[in-house]
């Protein structure tokens, strides 16, 4: 899959941004590219990219995140290394942005340089099965708030509709019309529909632009 130098992953909180961002980074790395993933979440101190620090290290993907991520301190801090995103053009960056419009504020400092360079994709991650984005109108409302706060318009949609462990192929297929109507209203394409790779066989040939999620965010939930 082709990605621009900077891939910004935004969306409603709980839509699966972190998981999508990790898998894009993984995909880029598999293509032999130099990749950094930046955790710029200033909203939620729980379940962060930082939780996957060991896997990222093993794969040679640089993790840029606040020293306080995953700690006992609740501070909306940004890492100083974030300036490499726009300063170091030799590397690909995947940006994991915090949920909703408040999270997208973190983009403001970088937005002018990102737009000026113009080698970015601003992805809107959507999930039809989240309670506050269950229909087209409510989802578009949330996405508009995010664009406004972040200062960068969305360029494409990532349909990451899932029900966690209960996700099956119908869960994904039933979300396609929802994603299409959001794409039509916002006049931006669907970059891809992402799904857990265990559904690959069942979904084979049924989805355009499928994107297999090979890496699952390490959560305590998996153990219990």
């Amino acid at each position: 899959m082709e990605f621009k130098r900077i891939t910004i992953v935004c969306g409603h909180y709980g839509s699966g941004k972190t998981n999508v961002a990790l898998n894009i980074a993984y995909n880029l790395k598999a293509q032999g590219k130099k990749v950094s993933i930046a955790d710029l979440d200033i909203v939620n101190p729980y379940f962060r990219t930082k939780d996957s620090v060991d896997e990222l290290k093993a794969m040679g993907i640089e993790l840029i995140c606040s020293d306080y991520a995953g700690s006992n301190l609740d501070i909306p801090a940004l890492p100083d290394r974030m300036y490499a995103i726009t300063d170091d053009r030799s590397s690909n960056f995947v940006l994991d942005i915090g949920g909703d419009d408040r999270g997208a504020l973190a983009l403001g400092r970088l937005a002018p340089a990102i737009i000026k360079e113009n080698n970015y994709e601003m992805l809107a991650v959507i999930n039809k099965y989240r309670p506050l984005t269950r229909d087209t109108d409510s989802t578009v409302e949330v996405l508009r708030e995010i664009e406004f706060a972040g200062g960068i318009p969305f360029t494409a949609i990532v349909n990451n509709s899932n029900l966690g462990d209960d996700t099956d192929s119908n869960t994904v297929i039933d979300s396609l019309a929802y994603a299409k109507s959001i794409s039509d209203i916002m006049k931006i394409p669907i970059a891809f529909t992402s799904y857990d790779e265990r559904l690959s066989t069942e979904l084979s040939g049924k989805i355009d632009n499928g994107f297999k999620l090979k890496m699952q965010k390490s959560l305590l939930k998996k153990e219990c």
Partner: protein
Amino acid sequence: MADKVLMKGNEAIAEAAIIAGCRHYFGYPITPQTEVAAYMAKKMPKIGGTFLQAESEIAAINMVYGVSSAGKRVMTSSSSPGISLKSEGLSYLAGADLPAFVVNVQRGGPGLGGIQPSQSDYFQATRGGGHGDYHMVVYAPASVQEMASLTVKAFDTADKYRMTAMILADGTMGQMMEPVDLESLKVEPAPEKPWATTGTDNKREHNIINSLYLKPEQLEQVNFDRFKRYEQVEANEVMFEEYLMDDAEICVAAFGIAARVSKNAINAARANGIKAGMIRPITLWPFPKDVFKKAAEKIHAFISVELSMGQMIEDVKLATECKAKYMLCNRVGGMIPLPDQVLASIEEAANGGEK
């Protein structure tokens, strides 16, 4: 299937409260429960409800007192340090026999502590929290579905007994995401509240909501009467889950996230031929005393798995009259015991354990 939604535990509480008819939310943000407030802020204006971010926790709990006095379903939510601030209000709610729904998504303490999960407010919740003789019904969910179903249950119990019902969750329960079936939630209509201050229309005497009694004899009687009601709660409202207890020789006692971790450890112990089981209290007050007492007839060791320095273990000992051996398996400060640690405790107990 198609009707399920993927929710965080905190969101499940908020949505379930709305389903239960709650239209008044007062709170003050604190990690790890902020999504309850964030959800209410988005939802309440759209359904004609009130979301208000108060100037402090103390203000929020007193707003709860006000709305409850007017007979409406009302809630607040916070995390450990915030609940300490609300404790005075909890005592006043109890003293005025007002129903209320309060959520504590616990974090590590004491003091400012940290934001990671904990269960160390067990004493505070089960012993009332504020001053004076009183209890709250305390529910301990162990899944996002239970965060929703116990929220609905809590509103019913609170109204039925005119007392505060609390969800005592931990940060993991608040933050984790699981599919939830909201349509299965069973909501009882709120009972008539003839005591509420809804206006007399010059047709009845004034209703007075108060916790001040000038005569000690009168205050004593009010306390006696209140504890008669608590006896009813203890008789009718106990909830627990038994897991593989039929032939168990070792019993794990755990609630919330600790129960989920323990289930894995128990399965592993069973695979190694150790007869382990679990009693998971769902109500922490009233504590499921009888099931523990009965278990003590054949269990030789109880292991209390807690995200605290050992609080529920005291209730386990009391319920079983200290007849067995007792072990604590714990992590604190925002850390969570892993299945391996629980399994090691079970194996130790199987090899004789310690008194």
